[in-house]
């Protein structure tokens, strides 16, 4: 018995594991929290694109002699604001524009890393996340972005909710919808930047989408959905990171697989009815999904 417990607790004696675990917990919680707005606004494709764009900044910054966080941060912010501008100005064709810009940025990152080698973080750890090399600075960044996000979501709660649910009426009711969109893009790009080395470019989108979808299947309340998605993201981050150590698989992979497993369990428990409640998530602008039959007046 003691042997089993020892084996289970074994990783906790290594400082790198504890750091990795804290990072995974923060990253999972952060992605789950912000993912609620991202999925309800139909922005997960933007999240996916943004992580690829930031990858270019990650690769380019060390070559230019700029600190990675600063370089990738500015790169990400610029991409986020550019995407925001494109989406707002041209509703149609925005997907294509985002696709071109972000994949080009990703390709540039791959090219730079292949040509000039590893001046910065390792190639595959950026793609799939890694438990190794989580520095104290990364934890501070994660913690800072997490606290910043919670503060922004608390202070602007009602305006963010209104502009997500019904932007037209929000605008008429005095909410600065453009400002809310910009704030969300900034929060999203900062979150992706902070979580990239834990979860990885290619898997960040999944951690943004899966916890909110699970939360939506469980609750009809927005406030509860925020709590639930954050908690699910947090728990999956912890479990995923632990599995990553034990199975020696990149941490982003195990975190996403844990998320997917929880999704399957909730789907089995809640059945198709739970899944139906997610209709319209991330398809907010799709009329075929958001249109509805007016129910008959109840007698």
């Amino acid at each position, binding site marked *: 018995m003691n042997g089993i417990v020892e084996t289970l607790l074994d990783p906790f004696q290594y400082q790198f594991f504890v750091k990795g675990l804290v990072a995974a917990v923060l990253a999972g919680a952060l992605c789950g929290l912000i993912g609620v707005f991202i999925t309800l606004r139909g922005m997960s494709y933007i999240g996916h694109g943004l992580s690829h764009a930031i990858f270019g900044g990650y690769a380019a910054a060390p070559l230019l002699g700029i600190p990675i966080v600063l370089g990738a941060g500015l790169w990400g912010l610029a991409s986020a604001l550019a995407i925001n501008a494109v989406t707002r100005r041209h509703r149609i064709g925005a997907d294509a524009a985002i696709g071109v810009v972000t994949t080009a940025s990703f390709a540039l990152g791959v090219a730079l890393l292949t040509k000039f080698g590893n001046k910065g973080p390792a190639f595959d750890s950026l793609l799939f996340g890694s438990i190794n090399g989580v520095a104290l600075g990364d934890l501070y960044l994660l913690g800072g972005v997490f606290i910043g996000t919670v503060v922004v979501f608390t202070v602007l709660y*009602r305006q963010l909710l209104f502009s997500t649910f019904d932007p037209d009426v929000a605008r008429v009711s005095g909410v600065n919808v453009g400002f809310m969109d910009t704030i969300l893009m900034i929060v999203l790009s900062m979150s992706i930047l902070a979580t990239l080395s834990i979860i990885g470019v290619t898997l960040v989108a999944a951690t943004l989408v899966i916890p909110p979808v699970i939360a939506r299947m469980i609750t*009809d309340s*927005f406030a509860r959905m925020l709590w639930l998605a954050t908690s699910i993201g947090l728990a999956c981050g912890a479990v995923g990171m632990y599995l990553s150590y034990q199975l020696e698989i990149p941490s982003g992979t195990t975190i996403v697989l844990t998320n997917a497993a929880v999704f399957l369990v909730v789907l089995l428990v809640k059945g198709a009815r739970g899944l139906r409640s997610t209709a319209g998530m991330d398809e907010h602008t799709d009329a075929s999904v958001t249109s509805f039959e*007016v129910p008959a*007046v109840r007698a």
Partner: protein
Amino acid sequence: MTAVSATPPLIDVSHVSFGYGGPAVLADVSCTVVPGQFTGIVGPSGSGKTTLLKLLLGTQKPQHGQVRRAAGMAVSYVPQLETVNWNFPVTVEDCVLMSRKARTWNPRPSKAERSEVAEVLERLGIADLGHRHIRELSGGQQQRMFLARALVRRPQLLLLDEPTSGVDVQTRHEVLHLLDDLNRDGLAIVLTTHDLNGMAAHLPHLIALSRRIIASGPPEEVIVPGVVEQVFGARMEILQHLGMPVVVDSMDDDPARRASAS
């Protein structure tokens, strides 16, 4: 009407033209909205009535002419039901609260705010639905919830986009009665509609729109053969029933339509 028209207008639209890059959607449109007014903007789709509504809302700016709004006026807007995602995870209370400006940093609604919402829901006859998810409401109840969200801002002017499109007859009656009550309490209301019999004929004042204002005044002056034909581009017969005009689509006059109908 003379008593109300003496007060300064809430919105004054003068000689406004508007286009989305192509031909003008609105040409030389002038009208005013005064306190206590209840107006229906009538026209088929493409007549420019939604654009005129947007100009009144201030979400579109005219390319020519002027839209002057009374300083500090609160306007509320009720969109068509299908403009939002009814699967969105909010309750009726959440939804109504959204348009109530937050006064503190605490995202939770205060006691005062909750009682304000309860009061409005009560007024609209959906007091018991506050904790329901919005998807569980019938079309009429959803319309009332939108009205509650609009009223909780205590507006002087309420603008509605096709409030009865896609709802059944009973709901249409309920909405009409509600709006009438609100108007009697002094709220100015402007709505768009393409429904001449079900909606327009019951309103005190109409504006018939087809790029330009073709006619404006009470229904008996606006729902007349010449105007209706010009606005809707089809010949229609107009009968009188209980003192209200009733428009009858005179299909028999048009051999092509008769053939396609059979």
